[in-house]
């Protein structure tokens, strides 16, 4: 009888010891960022501090240099942290690597990793599909706002029966975006006037064509010009949005940079801080709830931010509706 009690006591100790140990041990997170610890990084960190979850986060800054990533991979493999978090598409591709890589030894292996601030993780070959990464140690968050959400949001701001779409035939992303909008036009009941950036004699996209494009849009009497994802237009955003402003046509963009650092009227985007928080939630699933990364869905936020340039709004005399003000992010007040 006594023996049995002892045995069960012993068994109990054996069983509880490791779990006690696990609870007591601070979880290690190794985080690689692209250009310093900005909003998303902050949101991620605060997710844990707000909830009093015991983690130690080591942040490594690549400082926009792809070459240092290999060193970080080596370091991470040595430390063996509980989770590696990567910020941005380049960092994630450099650390986690595409699923079909032929040199897997160059990337992390056997360590759970989580990517964030990746617009198109499937396109970047980080994951096979959103519902499950298809890779045992990989999960993440993506921050693409679906096109229908963007259009609906635009329509709550102003009348958008005729939407002018500026896209670039040279970029696959941009073409895909244009195709999606074309489909949505019937569904949401608007007319789409799509115009591609024209190319110059060298076959390169032509900056000046952006201005003539705005003129054409004006002739077509569009209510608003929408710019989806095009890095060409993004880098020449000032020329484009200024031309639109002069023509008194509002511009809606798929990326907040058009609004914050240019003259576009509005953008529907995910706020980086919130993406950081979402990544925190995903990370908690992996390191505290004991889920395998492959079982954690690659999510995006269900709430989006409305970013409005009040300076442009004033100039165009298109003020945001009163209800939007409650949750919109106003810049250039």
């Amino acid at each position: 009888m006594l023996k049995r009690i002892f045995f069960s006591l012993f068994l109990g100790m054996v069983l509880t010891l490791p779990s006690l140990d696990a609870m007591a041990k601070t979880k290690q997170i190794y985080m690689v960022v692209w250009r310093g610890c900005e909003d998303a990084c902050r949101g991620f960190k605060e997710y844990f501090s707000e909830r009093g979850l015991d983690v130690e986060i080591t942040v490594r800054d690549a400082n926009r240099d792809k070459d240092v990533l290999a060193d970080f991979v080596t370091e991470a493999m040595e430390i063996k942290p509980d989770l590696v978090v990567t910020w941005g598409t380049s960092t994630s591709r450099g650390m986690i690597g595409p699923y079909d890589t032929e040199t897997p030894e160059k990337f992390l292996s056997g360590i759970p990793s989580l990517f964030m601030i990746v617009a198109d993780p499937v396109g970047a070959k980080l994951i096979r599909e959103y519902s499950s990464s298809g890779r045992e140690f990989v999960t993440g968050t993506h921050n693409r706002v679906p096109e229908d959400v963007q259009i609906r949001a635009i329509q709550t701001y102003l009348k958008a029966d005729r939407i002018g779409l500026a896209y670039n035939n040279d970029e696959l992303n941009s073409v895909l975006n244009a195709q999606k909008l074309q489909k949505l036009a019937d569904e949401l009941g608007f007319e789409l006037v799509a115009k591609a950036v024209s190319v110059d004699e060298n076959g390169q996209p032509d900056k000046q064509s952006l201005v003539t494009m705005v003129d054409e849009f004006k002739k077509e009497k569009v209510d608003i010009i929408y710019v989806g994802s095009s890095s060409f237009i993004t880098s020449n955003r000032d020329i484009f949005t200024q031309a639109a402003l002069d023509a008194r046509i509002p511009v809606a963009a798929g990326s907040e940079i058009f609004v914050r650092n240019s003259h576009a009227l509005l953008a529907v985007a995910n706020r980086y801080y919130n993406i950081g928080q979402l990544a925190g939630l995903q990370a908690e699933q992996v390191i505290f709830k004991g889920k395998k990364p492959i079982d954690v869905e690659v999510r995006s936020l269900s709430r989006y931010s409305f970013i409005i340039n009040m300076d442009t709004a004033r100039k165009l005399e298109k003020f945001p509706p009163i209800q939007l003000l409650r949750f919109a992010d106003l810049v250039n007040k």
Partner: protein
Amino acid sequence: MNDFSSSNTITSDMNRRLVFVTILVVIFASMVSTLYALVEINQSLRPELERKAHVTANSIHEDMNRALDAGIPFEKIAGVKSYLDGIVSKYDEFLYIYVTTPQDELVFRGGDEDFVFDPALLKNASLGETERAGQEDVLGHFSNGFMQLLSLTPFFGDHQRDVLTAPIELKYDGQVYGKIYIGLDGYFIRGELTNVFFDILIILVTVVLVSFEFILVMVMMNVSLPIFKVEEILRKQSNSDFGRISHTKRWGDEINNLITLLNNTSVDLQERYKRLHERVFSKDAGAAREFEKLGKRFNLQGMLMSSGSQASVIDARIPLFVFSFAEELQKSFMPLYVDELYRPVLGLSRDMIIGLPIAIFMFVIAAITPFAGSWADKFGNKRLFLFGLFPAITGYIGCALANDIYDVLVWRSSTAIGYAIITISCQGYIAAVVSKENRAKGMAVFVGVLMSATMCGTAIGGIIADRIGYHPVFFISAVFAACAGLLAWRMLSSDVRDEKQQVATEIGASKKPSAMRVLIKNTRFVALVAFCAIPTKIVLTGFFYYLIPLYLVSLGTSTAETGRIMMLYSFIIIPISPIAARFVDRTQKVKELVVFGSLFSGLLLVVFSYYETVWALVAAVALLGVAHGIIKAPLIAAVMEACEDEKDVGRTQVLGILRTSERVGSVMGPLLIGALLSFTSYAGAMGMLGGLILVITLAMFFIFNNSAVKQTAEG
């Protein structure tokens, strides 16, 4: 003065007048007090609504200031209309919102466009508060309130539907830049008050029914029976019988005075006779014997022998009504109550468990009834009624204090024992006091009382549960059951025993194996029982008792409304079933009616399961009342017809077996629906049950036709 042609004319005249007067007064009194209550409630709700309007205006103010913060000029704020529209549609009590400049010029408006913006009216709104403070005197207060209420009724049109509240000033940086006015909807209060009105209507119906019952009984006991007594004494006296009655009431009413007067004549004569007889006897015994002839001839020494029994059907009416009223209080919310106390039982699905108390209740009734019959023989109906109260009341108290599903099961079974005993004792009592020819009429009284009690009980129980919760309703049931006991103790006669044997055998469902064995071979009988009697009960307990409360609440009705809707069933079945019975008598289209009723009930379940709305269920319940009303009488007739040729089996035996099988259906109902619900929705279960009924009825139809063909082939 020929209207005093018989005691019946006097009694019915009294009944008519008293019922009329009482109902008239009850209706007018309730109208007056309802009106008064509505006026008062309306008046004291107004300031509360105004406060809400002000709070809302303040939150609009905040949003406006946020826009100004963003550098948007007041007049240029966009989307205000849809914003205000949104607020108005979110809160039923608001009609419109105006946003004006400080000079009362309209800038934005939202809500109902039909109201014309009139700056002159806005001035009044600002004055509102002080003006209202001026009306202090009671009469002015009431008449003003009454006018307000009148303006809410549909008869007086839309004028003054809206009530403007005093404005809220819009301020930014200490500067007033505008005002917000909110128009309250007078109809909002009307909508709330409509509910009060409906509750009161239900109570009114109940009170009318109850007072009707009471007046019937009171007239019977205080007028009819005493007049009968007067007639009896008078008739005896005119037939040379001057027997006396043992006691007369000293403080009697008028008719008792008559009785006393008549009796006094007899007593007077008897006394004279007695004195004389004594004197004669002391003188001459032989002459005395001669003298006694005179006494014999006029019964001058004896007591008056009453010819008829005092007991009547009326006695059992009120106790039975009160008791079944108590029992029906829980009907509109029973499944919801169980849902609240839910705990897993024996691995059954949640939906099955919720149906369990109803099923067990029915099961216990089915199990107890055969015994109750023999108990009636042993103890007498009055005592049996009082015995039945113990398990019933204990059951109610237990249910009120129940903590989990097991408690409910145990205590509902206890109540079921009481219920079975009491209904049997009443049935037995009624059967015993009426003559054989009036048997059917007596049973109609029994069923009628049960039905009207069901109607009132279900609705009132729902209202009470809605106001004070489920638990206390069981306490109220216990109190009513106790009242029923008191009434039974006072009103039932304890000496009715004749004919009991027969009653007991009928109720006791004498399942002589031979009878069973004979009937089971009778295809038509089996078809009727299995394909009509049992399914009808399944629909009743499964769909009506179990599914309806759950389904209605899932659609957002309150228990009070559920009770009201369930009341419809009894409300409709009461007039429909006698009509159907008469139709059967006249046309003899027994089978057709049974098939039609069954098909109809199945069809309506299927059809209304498509519309998942409250009104569809209201229609379903009402039409189910029609369907079941149609089936009721023809089913019994059809069963009798089917068993016509079975010479070994008596009528009562057939009825007994029919009743027992019906109880099987009652038990199955909630369980079947519970099983369906574990894999489908409420609407789905309703539709499937309907489909099942349709298929089964068609099967029955087929069997009927087949056996009819066979019969003609044989014949």
